[in-house]
């Protein structure tokens, strides 16, 4: 058997070849899974950018609101002080977003931006309760609702991307690859609890 048969029919060769093939398939699969994880992570990062844009567009409307307030009867000095405070909070949250190192830090910073904006709006709403019904405010109200909805929409889409990523990180067998390449679960973007409990924050309600 040993002398007559060519080497590739010997048992040792066949076993080595099979093991080699399995290794190749395994390594290829691991690479594929790692690429998939990275791709899902990139989707999350892209979605973060979208939320940040929406948050910024929303905050840009505040000067319009303040101008509209100037013409109305209300507690002017108290309101301006509070709005200034809330604006400082917003800017601080924005800069911590810019300096954030990890995805979870970015999410936290954006949540603070969300809260700061809602604080500004609720301050205005408390002191100028009839503002939203004024005729000249209708366009601005529509714009506010629009930007609010964009933030909500982008937040939901972001959470979808995070869920897709997290599913891959925790589900077997890609969880093995995730552990190897140091991919961890990401936090969801929580909606501002205060905004949900306090309907006056949303001008549309």
């Amino acid at each position, binding site marked *: 058997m040993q002398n007559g048969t*060519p080497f*590739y029919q010997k048992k040792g060769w066949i076993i080595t070849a099979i093991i080699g*093939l399995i290794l*190749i*398939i395994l390594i*290829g*699969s691991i*690479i*594929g*899974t790692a*690429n*998939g994880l990275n*791709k899902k992570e990139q989707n999350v990062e892209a979605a973060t950018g*979208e939320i940040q844009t*929406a948050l910024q567009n929303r905050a840009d409307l505040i000067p319009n609101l303040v101008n509209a307030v100037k013409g109305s009867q209300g507690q002017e000095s108290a309101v301006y002080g509070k709005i200034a405070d809330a604006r400082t909070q917003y800017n601080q949250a924005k800069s911590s977003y810019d300096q954030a190192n990890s995805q979870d830090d970015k999410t936290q910073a954006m949540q603070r931006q969300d809260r700061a904006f809602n604080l500004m709006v609720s301050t205005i709403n408390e002191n100028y309760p009839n503002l939203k019904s004024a005729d000249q405010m*209708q*366009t*601005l*109200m*529509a*714009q506010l*609702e*629009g*930007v609010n*909805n*964009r*933030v*909500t*929409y*982008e937040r*939901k*889409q972001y959470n*979808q991307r995070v869920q*897709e990523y997290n599913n*891959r990180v925790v*589900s077997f*067998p*890609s969880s093995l690859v995730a552990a190897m390449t140091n991919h961890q679960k990401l936090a969801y973007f929580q909606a501002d609890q205060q905004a949900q409990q306090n309907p006056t924050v949303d001008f549309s309600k």
Partner: protein
Amino acid sequence: MTLIKGFFRPLCLLLLAVCAASLLLTQSAAAEDPNSLQPDSRYPLITDRAKVLSDKTKETVRRQNQTFQKSQQQAQVGILTVDNTDGLSIRDFTNDLTLRKAWQLGSKKENNGVLIVFAKNNGANNVRVVTGTGAEAVLPDGKIRQLLAKYQDDLKSNQNEAVDRGLRQLFQELATTLPSSGRAQQNQQVSPWLIAGVLVVLVAVFAIWRKLRRQYPSQANRDGLIDEQDQRGSGWGPFLFGWLLGSASSGYSRADDDHYFDGGSDFDSGDFGGSDDFGGGDFGGGGSDF
């Protein structure tokens, strides 16, 4: 044996009946659920579940979208009507609907689609107009609100004809605001099918070449040893080649999938869209409603 056969046919029929029944039931129960609602299969741009649209309105919508399709910008304006949004506000309903990417109007590049969503909601007659990011420039939220206010009397009426007229006029206003000029360009993208076809041809050529070399061996192969080695090798070669290529190109995947060992690329159904289909454009939560 005959006993099993006797059971088999009625069992199959029963199974079929159960499947059909459950399919019918789920269709009617999920009618207004934004997470499972589907656009009309024949003409997705008009999905009139609440049956409020007249033939005149549908014809207007069709003709306008045909005009759009011939233009360079490839915008689209669609209408969806439902009886009830199941307790959701029309805004949340539309958000859930568009997040699913089941309605994708407008060109894929420009995202210049507009969708009118109408819900009877027991007489509340809620209307929402959603704009893709590309349409927002000419149709900002404030302007949409103004348009809605303009046709408020018709849209909020409890007369079907008035609602139909309001929707038609709203549609026409939105359509005329969207840019529609020039001529449509031919699709120049390299289709994934082309790449796949080339790969298949390459692998086939590779395999055939191997086979030919075996059949017509050169002088060096006459001693038989190398011959058989070729015979072995041609089995694994194309397989490994194709498989590793697939692995390496896992980054090409365009659609989301649940495969864990992701080795292949996905193909986009948008490459084969007809004149009545969605253009593939996305929405971003913009728009206004009342």
